């Protein structure tokens, strides 16, 4: 029995490793992109982010918020009126402005408080950095609000804008692409096995389809983790990329991301009969998602009609969670939404698989 499971897993893993096209397209693509961006475009963003704050609330809470922000030594905080700050933003004198609306302080205690944030999109790298910083600020506010009913303090680590280089932005994005390419491919594999008659041959044996499929999943997860370690090792050793977050949380994100892509791959295999068609469908889905999902550059500058599309893409949320953990050192709270969206994608895909997938 044990031999059977071990042989099953080992055989599936060996087949994966020997599939050179897969390794090249996933890990190779990620590494090459990293090298290109790391060496060609290497450079750092500015140490201090110019942040404008418009306080329309004038409450003790909003005052605390402003003073906390001013305490950060990676933020240069300017206060002013709405029109003043918007003008400064338009002139490129601010990376972002935060508008604290009136009633913010009251709503913060009750729940349902909103902040308006405006970004300068002209420099994608700085914009990305700023977004991460502001997001961390907002998340910091959220955790402060839920944990401390007293004076508002912000997690200073979350507020510190680290030196964001192109490579720091790209690395999580490349990890996202890696996980996508390597795991979508399971769909092509299944369709191929079915089209070639391999699943038919297996159907004449006592080996149950679910056993074969689960060992494929485990093998691909193992490969994903190995490839992740290789990619991050290269990033940290060659480019001094820092992983600020918890490694266990990062592992969780990687595993969930891989499972999400696997589930989508299965869903594709449920509808496509021929390997060539499976290849085409996967390409059609992967390529746009690579770019719209924010692997190479921030998508907040994309036209507004695309934004709803972008916000459904699983890779978008995977990249977000990876960036938060690797670059912002975020904890579960900050990535919760992204993780939940990925789980939703898994559930939706598995529903499709349950209804439509045929082994033969």
């Amino acid at each position, binding site marked *: 029995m044990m031999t059977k499971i071990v042989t099953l897993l080992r055989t599936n893993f060996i087949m994966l490793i020997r*599939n050179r096209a897969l390794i090249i397209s996933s890990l190779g693509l990620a590494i090459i992109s990293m090298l290109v961006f790391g060496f060609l475009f290497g450079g750092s963003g500015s140490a201090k982010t110019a942040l404008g704050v418009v306080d329309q609330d004038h409450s003790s809470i909003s005052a605390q918020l402003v003073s906390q922000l001013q305490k950060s030594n990676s933020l240069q905080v300017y206060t002013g009126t709405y029109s003043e700050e918007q003008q400064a933003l338009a002139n490129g004198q601010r990376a972002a402005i935060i508008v604290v609306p009136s009633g913010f302080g009251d709503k913060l205690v009750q729940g349902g408080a909103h902040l308006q944030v405006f970004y300068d999109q002209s420099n994608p790298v700085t914009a990305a950095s700023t977004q991460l910083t502001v997001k961390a600020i907002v998340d910091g506010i959220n955790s402060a609000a839920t944990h401390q009913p007293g004076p508002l303090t912000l997690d200073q680590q979350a507020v510190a804008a680290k030196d964001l280089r192109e490579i720091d932005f790209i690395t999580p994005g490349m990890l996202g692409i890696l996980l996508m390419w390597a795991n979508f491919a399971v769909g092509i594999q299944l369709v191929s096995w079915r089209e070639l008659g391999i699943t038919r041959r297996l159907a004449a044996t006592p080996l149950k389809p679910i056993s074969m499929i689960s060992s494929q999943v485990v093998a691909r997860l193992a490969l994903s983790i190995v490839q992740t370690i290789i990619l991050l090792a290269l990033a940290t050793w060659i480019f001094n990329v820092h992983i600020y977050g918890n490694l266990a949380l990062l592992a969780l994100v990687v595993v969930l991301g891989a499972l999400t892509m696997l589930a989508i791959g299965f869903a594709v295999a449920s509808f496509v009969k021929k390997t060539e068609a499976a290849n085409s469908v996967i390409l059609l889905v992967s390529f746009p998602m690579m770019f719209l999902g924010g692997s190479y550059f921030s998508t907040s500058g994309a036209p507004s009609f695309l934004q709803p599309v972008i916000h459904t893409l699983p890779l978008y949320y995977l990249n977000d969670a990876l960036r938060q953990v690797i670059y912002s050192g975020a904890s579960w709270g900050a990535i919760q939404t992204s993780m939940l969206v990925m789980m939703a994608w898994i559930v939706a895909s598995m529903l499709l698989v349950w209804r439509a997938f045929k082994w*033969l």
Partner: protein
Amino acid sequence: MKQQLETLSPETATVATSNDVMVEVRDLKKSYHHKTAVNNVSFAIRQGEIFGVLGPNGAGKTTTLEMIEGIRTPDTGTAILAGLDIRRQKSAVQRIIGVQLQATTLFSELTVLETLLFFRSIYPKGLNPWQLLRDVALEEKAKAHPQDLSGGQRQRLALALALVNDPKVIFLDEPTAGLDPQSRHMLWNIVLKLREQGKTILITTHYMDEAQILCDRIAIMDGGQIIALDTSTGLINRLGAQAMLNCRLNGQATIGEIRELPGVTGVREANKRFFIYTSEMQPTLEALLAYAAQRGIPMTDLQVRTPTLEDVFLDLTGRELRPE
């Protein structure tokens, strides 16, 4: 080859008695898109028998086999193998059967030996993969990948995979299709050896020579149904013909007149070519030659041969077993 024919089981019983039935197929039925692919097929195979299913492409042979092997679910009917019902005890049945499918493709990333080891690991009991490689003469190719094998070698690998669990019943679906004569003979010898080991074998084929050489009994299948079941000799004897004369008559010959010739049991004509079945070869031949001479009809390409299963099929269906 003639000797092989004579040493085939001399039993004339055409029905398997209940105490030695290994495979019992009961009323199998399968339809696709309102077309009935397999229509109430039943037969029984004795333990240690090589049972052939002969028929043209599209007769429903593969579908029937797939239902017995548990790959496909029948609409109605079932198959009982060694007392186990394929519909209710599928895993148990599949542990004692081995199958070689038509055109088996295998994992291209694995070597021949790795493939054998993988399949071997599926079963609790089985044979040593190296020994199997020796039995099918593929030892040298142990480290090769399936795509580097020739057609004959690939079929032998598929056969080895069918034997990896030392099965009681082996299913071979068109095992020599597209193979060169040498590979075909090699495979036939392996199959005959398997029967010597006491294995029960079901083989589908559209080759008459294969059916005649290997099979103890043959079921002729056409249009989803079994239209005849007997030993090869039995089927041919049913034609009531001792010989078949085949010639071209480039003149005013008619079927009616040929049928009147002494000894003739049946005539078929296609494009001036006459196929004449006779139970008395010499009288018919003499009368035929006289007839042609008398009428001044030129005769060419005269062939005389003993009837074959192809003739049986033709007789039963009016169609060729293998359209040229």
